[in-house]
């Protein structure tokens, strides 16, 4: 257990440093670290502090968010197929961003896109809470999430459908693939408070999720407030997923694959999986963001495309390995 934590932490740290050292501007490793930590405001320091540092931090932060939210969602629904996007918040955040691009808000105001995405996420979470908040069980939450995702997806398509502006359509399509390229410290400061709040909320769920291993009835009889747990789960997931989608677009499969991958290593206990998945998600997204810069540096490969491209076969492999134990 502690060894797993240590090796995951080490992997995150190593990938983080590596992420700082790779980029289109070829800077020698030592120079880049000197630029980051030493004073001065030359071009090297500029690249390091304003481009690479926020990119690396955002990758680690959003990866951790997706891993944590995925583990919490799977633990609550007791279903290894659950993922953070399930409650419809990422879909509605994407809709907000798409509207910002289409209306030109994102072009006229730098933070227009992420702010609209956050507004979209808020709308989605309010709707999910109205449908599945204080009452209604896990099934209602899933159904409400599916309905909201479908609605947001349809409205996104409608924007694309009716758009008269080919540049906006182009931009929307690429934005929806998810990316961490050209993000600034401002993006980080915008996403950080929501993310931290979401982490605190999700991290508090450990014991309740453990008790849910025995089913909702038994967990409730052991003193777990199920409605409060569901509320905290929805709000925590909405915070981290809304903030992540707002700055990086839709990044799939991390929240699904990482908890699945790490579950055997923590004895399948949901509370221990929360932390492991957070670290694993950070490592995975840092690695994926490194890969998009190394594999096709001049073609701007999108992060969300790569995570799905790597994640899906990985998931197939896991299913192949465990299918004998599945009912």
């Amino acid at each position, binding site marked *: 257990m502690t060894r797993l934590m240590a090796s995951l932490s080490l992997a995150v740290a190593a990938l983080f440093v590596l992420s700082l050292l790779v980029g289109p501007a070829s800077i020698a490793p030592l120079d880049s670290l000197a630029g980051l930590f030493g004073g001065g405001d030359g071009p090297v320091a500029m690249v390091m502090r304003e481009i690479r540092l926020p990119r690396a931090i955002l990758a680690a932060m959003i990866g951790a968010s997706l891993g944590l939210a995925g583990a919490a969602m799977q633990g609550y629904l007791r279903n290894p197929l659950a993922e953070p996007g399930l409650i419809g918040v990422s879909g509605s955040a994407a809709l907000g961003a798409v509207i910002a691009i289409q209306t030109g808000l994102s072009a006229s105001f730098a933070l227009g896109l992420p702010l609209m995405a956050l507004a979209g996420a808020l709308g989605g979470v309010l709707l999910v809470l109205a449908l599945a908040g204080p009452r209604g069980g896990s099934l209602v939450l899933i159904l409400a999430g599916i309905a909201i995702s479908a609605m947001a997806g349809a409205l996104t398509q409608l924007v694309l459908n009716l758009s008269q502006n080919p540049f906006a359509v182009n931009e929307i399509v690429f934005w929806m693939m998810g990316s961490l390229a050209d993000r600034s410290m401002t993006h980080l400061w915008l996403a950080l408070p929501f993310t931290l709040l979401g982490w605190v909320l999700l991290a508090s769920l450990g*014991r309740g999720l453990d008790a849910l291993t025995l*089913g909702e*009835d*038994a967990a*409730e*009889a052991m*003193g777990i407030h199920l409605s409060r747990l569901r509320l905290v789960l929805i709000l925590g997931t909405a915070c981290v997923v809304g903030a992540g989608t707002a700055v990086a677009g839709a990044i799939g499969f991390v929240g699904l694959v990482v908890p699945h991958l790490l579950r*055997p290593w923590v004895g399948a206990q949901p509370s221990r999986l929360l932390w492991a998945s957070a670290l694993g998600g950070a490592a995975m997204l840092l690695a994926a963001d490194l890969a998009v810069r190394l594999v096709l540096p001049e073609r701007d490969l999108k992060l969300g495309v790569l995570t799905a491209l790597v994640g899906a076969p990985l998931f197939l492999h896991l299913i192949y390995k465990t299918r004998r*134990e599945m009912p």
Partner: protein
Amino acid sequence: MTLLSLRDLSVTLRGRPVFSGVTLNIGAGEMVGLIGPNGAGKTTLMRAALGLLDHDGQSSLAALDPRARAQAVAWMPQAREIAWPVTVEALVTLGRTPHRARRLTEADHHAVDRAIDWMGLSHMRQRTATRLSGGEQARVLIARALAQDTPLVMADEPIAGLDPAHQIATMETFAGLARSGRSVLVSLHDLGLAARHCSRLILLGQGQVMADGTPAKVLTPEMVAQAFGITAYQAETDQGRIFQPLEVLE
């Protein structure tokens, strides 16, 4: 000492009354069997008594706040749910949830060890609970409830689907709990086991408690015919009470 007290408890689901006016007390050291035909509301009665279901009337357990209630009663639902492939030990330790501080204390470990020993699971502590047989899983889940270390244990059909040896062993475990001063309320369909192992039976049917008392008092031929629509052979032998259902009444 009263461990559960119901006063005029009624439950109505979707406009249909399931039962009404249920009043009963369970004291210390009792092994109580809750019997009744399908649909009589045995599960509903237990869930309402726990406060997991909307109800009218009073239940001493439902009135407690959730954490205090979890220290007063352990509940085993009928569905034997084990969602993740955790070890037997980890699963039994979940029974300590209502007692735990941040870390497991000496008392927690002691209660878990005792529950595992009691159910004879020591040799499978580190095995994965989801890979065990149905009978073994049932025993692990009983150990979980015992680890909760409550004065009252409520179990919904804990012996359904077990082979005779495990059924008898489970009933004897519960009877042993009762002898040690704790109390058990179990719903049962097997009237033979109920007559043999329970110190008291509560017969639920026709929307009310039809009878409440010792097995001999509750399982009269008239009552058995009225509640279950069957005839039965009964005898008090030197090997205990024998109850064998015979025929369905027309």
